[in-house]
């Protein structure tokens, strides 16, 4: 009798061990506390939702997905330590972090380990250093700015543009690309104004914009500074149409700038307000599970996991070393993999090409005015 029980226990243990061994292990390092807690929590919840869905449908190639979450505390130093720890466990793919600064210091570790890293950072330089293992979940500036410039030139019909940017890596990177593109399209930059991070007084900058009398103003600042300049533009009666990115028309900016944000337009890569059925379905599922509507970081986390699934399905095997090579140049269609939400193509540098949205602030709310198609 004893031997039967022992044999049964051994069998159960062996089965459990076998199932565990078959699971595909993912490692996530995200901003779960500190200043980026909103970013990291949305990202993590998006990941968990996608994994739950995939596992409920039988997993990837018949194997379940498992993920471990580690907290970077929104600190690049901690992120680096957490990524090193995660890589030591030899995950199939590394997910995160969301902050560009944390991505910048962790990407060499993942590349050295030969593990693909799917992250949330948007700074242009991240994918320009020749790292063959780094992939975006959203647009980098080199992808979004050409769309912005095209919209300013083609749709706003602006022959002259004032460009206001924040003098840091983020602002400089965006400014360089947009100015180059505007020049290529034939829109003249009549004012090129650098501002300082944390700047409180924009009276002089707006004075310069007024003096230049442009057909349109492109604003590329962080959220708080965007709100301040929007208020100053209204205060000084600047009526030229305003164009920006997510940082100009985000919900926080609208809250801070109040009426001054009305009419501002911006290009956004991902928004849960997008007129796309699959995104609406995602939004509903997410809201049902977590009792709140996610921001674009929730979408990014969700997409990251479906990138893993689609790439693995494409390979037909779980091979972490071949993962990055397969994802480079891969186009994933939403009709084949609904979890990817919109058709997307990955470049050789890990950048993405996907449709995006032109949003306008109308009476304090974001309204999607136009869907901008994939570039290629």
């Amino acid at each position, binding site marked *: 009798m004893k031997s039967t029980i022992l044999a049964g226990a051994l069998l159960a243990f062996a089965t459990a061990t076998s199932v565990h061994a078959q699971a595909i292990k993912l490692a996530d390092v995200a901003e779960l506390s500190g*200043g980026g807690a909103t970013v990291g929590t949305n990202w993590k919840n998006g990941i968990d939702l996608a994994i739950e869905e995939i596992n409920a449908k039988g997993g990837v190639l018949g194997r379940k997905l498992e993920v471990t979450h580690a907290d970077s505390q929104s600190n690049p130093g901690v992120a680096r330590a957490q990524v090193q720890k995660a890589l030591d466990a030899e995950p199939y793919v590394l997910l995160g972090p969301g902050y560009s600064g944390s991505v910048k210091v962790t990407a060499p570790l993942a590349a050295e380990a030969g593990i693909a890293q799917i992250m949330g950072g948007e700074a242009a330089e991240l994918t320009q250093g020749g790292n063959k293992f780094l992939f975006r979940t959203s647009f980098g500036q080199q992808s979004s700015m050409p769309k912005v410039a095209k919209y300013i030139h083609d749709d706003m019909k602006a022959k002259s543009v004032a460009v206001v940017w924040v003098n840091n890596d983020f602002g400089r990177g965006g400014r360089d690309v947009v100015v180059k593109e505007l020049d290529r399209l034939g829109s003249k930059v009549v004012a090129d104004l650098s501002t300082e991070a944390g700047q*409180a*007084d924009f*009276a*002089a*900058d707006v004075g310069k914009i007024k003096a230049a009398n442009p057909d349109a103003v492109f604003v590329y600042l962080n959220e*708080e500074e965007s*709100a301040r300049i929007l208020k100053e533009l209204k205060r000084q009666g600047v009526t030229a149409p305003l164009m920006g990115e997510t940082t100009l028309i985000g919900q926080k900016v609208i809250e801070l700038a109040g009426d001054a944000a009305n009419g501002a337009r911006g290009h956004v890569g991902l928004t849960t307000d997008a007129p796309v059925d699959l995104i609406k379905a995602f939004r509903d599922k997410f809201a049902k599970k977590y009792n709140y509507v996610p921001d674009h970081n929730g979408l990014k986390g969700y997409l990251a996991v479906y990138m893993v699934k689609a790439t693995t399905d494409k390979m037909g095997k779980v091979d972490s070393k071949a993962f990055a090579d397969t994802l480079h140049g891969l186009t994933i269609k939403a009709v084949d993999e609904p979890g990817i939400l919109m058709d997307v193509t990955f470049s050789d540098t890990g950048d993405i090409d996907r449709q995006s949205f032109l949003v306008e602030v109308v009476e304090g709310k974001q309204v999607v005015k136009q869907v901008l198609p994939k570039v290629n």
Partner: protein
Amino acid sequence: MSNLFDLLVAGLATGAIYALVAVGFTLLWQTSQTINFAQGEFVMLPAFLMLAAMHAGAPFWLAIILGILLSMLLLGLAFKMLLVDPMLRHGVLPLAIATMALAIGLKEAVKQFFSAEASPFPSIVPTGDISILGHAVSLQSIGVLLLAILAVFGLTALLNRTSLGHQMQAAAQNPTVARIIGVPVERMILLTFLINAFLVALASLLITPIYLAKFTSGEVLGQAAFIAAIIGGFNQVRGAIAGGLLIGVLDNLAAAYVSTQYRAAVPMIFLIAVILFRPQGLLGRAEERTV
């Protein structure tokens, strides 16, 4: 030309707010030898007191009154009794360092108990334009300028034309003799602290709709007002007023015609020049103390 006019108006409006804060610097220095390095944070805090009152359900006008009263209580009375009085007996330098610590404490407290993120703040001046000499000028700039000038003129009238003001002058110039002739010196000193608290609360009310309510917003203001007070003359209220207006205009013109990156450097260079060639300040008087 139109641009220059806009810059001058905007600069004067900002400068008038600097002047309010700079006047507070000189008042405290004259009456109690207090160099208050937390003056910028004193401008930051009232906005959060008003926001807290609004969050508790108070209408804006009531929040303003509560904010000003609480500011006078905390930044006037409590500041004097709990920090200045105990520290001053150890000398001017320990007190100055204590105010630096207070600045850090106030910032961290607001960050901890309110938010690290910026918050919107309503404006008491309506938005829109009016035409002056053919130029469209923002009502907000004009309103801020007028309110700040009104406050400064009111203060000047109080100091120069009333018995109370004369007693304050006497307490500042020679406390010993003032006591002999019956001036309640301690009460006069407390009054200057309360006036300073009122001025910073007013500055907070005027500047926060433009700068947004944030725990760091006092850093720029405190520095600008300190420079303004030194340039104008640390021992003269009128010097602080002139210094504030000058710094506001200079800052805006520097940003427009020199460089945004170096805008903060221009007032500093001017400050160095004033210290080198007229250390008592543009309107200050050497070896004299008066309010």
